[in-house]
């Protein structure tokens, strides 16, 4: 079986500052990975290399068996298989919710408008906001916007989802609705890599927790072991800070 993602000795620097140092990680189809670690440790950069929003300097990245290189065809192919949600949602403010969801299917997958709208409504129902379809993003709450962003990504029928701190820009009362949506997606068998500090969510959903610090993967363990019996000093320090 082809691995969903394989990162092999991946490194990246901004100028002389190394952000990723020799990252090795492989993700099985259907697997749920949670990445956590202190701010600035390279979590965002890591998941952004998976769909080439950031270019890696050395090492190799394979997604669904396709290698990420300068080959634009491979990049396009990988991007259409990998969905992504951002901390600040990044919905398109000039388009309605429905148009946000149909834009890529119509222009990338060349779906008909009718077909794209049917798919969009299906996923908007899945994230439980079909009634907002004709509104604009600015008319929705943060939690609703993030659910739309999830639906928008799903409309491309991705095989894998990347989440970069999907709840950290939300008011506390909205975190639950977004995590529940991601939870449901996980139950459907979606492969996921999720950067988050939501411990409850990680325990519930993750197959493995990856802890990063200073551009390195410090440890990778099942959530129960990770939270109850952290081995590394840096992990212990991070967890105790998170609890306080």
């Amino acid at each position, binding site marked *: 079986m082809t691995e969903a993602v394989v990162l092999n000795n991946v490194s990246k620097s901004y100028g002389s500052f190394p952000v990723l140092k020799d990252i090795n990680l492989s993700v099985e189809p259907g697997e749920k990975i949670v990445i956590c670690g202190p701010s600035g440790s390279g979590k965002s950069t890591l998941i952004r290399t998976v769909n080439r*929003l950031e270019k890696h300097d050395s090492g190799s990245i394979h997604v669904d068996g396709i290698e990420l290189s300068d080959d634009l065809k491979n990049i396009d192919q990988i*991007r259409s298989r990998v969905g992504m949600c951002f901390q*600040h949602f*990044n919905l*398109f403010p*000039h388009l309605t919710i429905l148009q946000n969801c149909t*834009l890529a299917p119509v222009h990338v997958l060349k779906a008909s408008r009718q077909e794209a709208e049917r798919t969009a409504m299906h996923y908007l129902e899945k994230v439980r906001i079909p009634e907002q379809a004709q509104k604009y993003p*600015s008319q929705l709450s943060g939690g609703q916007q993030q659910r739309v962003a999830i639906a928008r990504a799903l409309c491309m029928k991705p095989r894998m989802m990347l989440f970069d701190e999907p709840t950290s820009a939300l008011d506390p009362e909205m975190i639950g609705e977004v995590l529940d949506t991601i939870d449901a997606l996980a139950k459907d068998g979606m492969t996921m890599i999720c950067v988050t500090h939501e411990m409850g969510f990680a325990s519930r959903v993750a197959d493995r927790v990856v802890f990063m610090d200073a551009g390195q993967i410090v440890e990778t363990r099942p959530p129960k072991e990770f939270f109850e019996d952290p081995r590394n000093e840096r992990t212990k320090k991070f967890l105790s800070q998170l609890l306080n």
Partner: protein
Amino acid sequence: MAFSFELFIEAMLTPAMIRGAGIALVLTVLVFVISFFACLPMALWLGSKKKLRNIAAKLYVWVFRAAPVILILLFVWNGTPQLFPALLKSSWFTPFVAATVSLVLITIAYMAEIMRSALSSVAPGQGEAAQALGLGRFQTFRLVVMPQALRIALPPMVNEFINVLKVTSLAYVISLREIMAVVNDSIAATFRFVEWYTAALVYYLIIVSLFMMLQGIVARRQSKADLA
């Protein structure tokens, strides 16, 4: 000599005057549309991290913002035939064409600045989200970044349109028969300054108002998305 309302109406309805207003309007729209498309690469170069492009674009903007409009008009009309004598014999190189070229050269410089600032105010996350969805670079620009930049650029663009309309009045120096050229000739023949200047003013007011109305319609269509 008191203001003669009759003469004012007569001035307004003179065929040469109506034609002059038509020329000013067509020239303005033409210059505006050509400059709009031509300013896009310039705007991207102005915001580019690539040194050579960035310097070339900045140099262009620097030159054409500093140069007086009349100088550019005369340069294009009198200067280019000196460099390319074939233009003297060509039938297409008319004052209208020379005015269009001159004003496009100048307007690009101003519009590129407007678009650069509008493009840079679109959040970088917008382009990233579009690319993550698989949209290509050109699709991302056309479908996601550009519509948002245009919304920001609309008010300064309307100003720019009005500026272009005003500077068409300088094209009389290369004997383009626009509004002010007609007015100057008529005054030389009649010495009725006030009536003719008023007629010219009214024409400019009409054209500007038309476009303010158009802006209003576009802005109203956009405002739905800007609620909250």
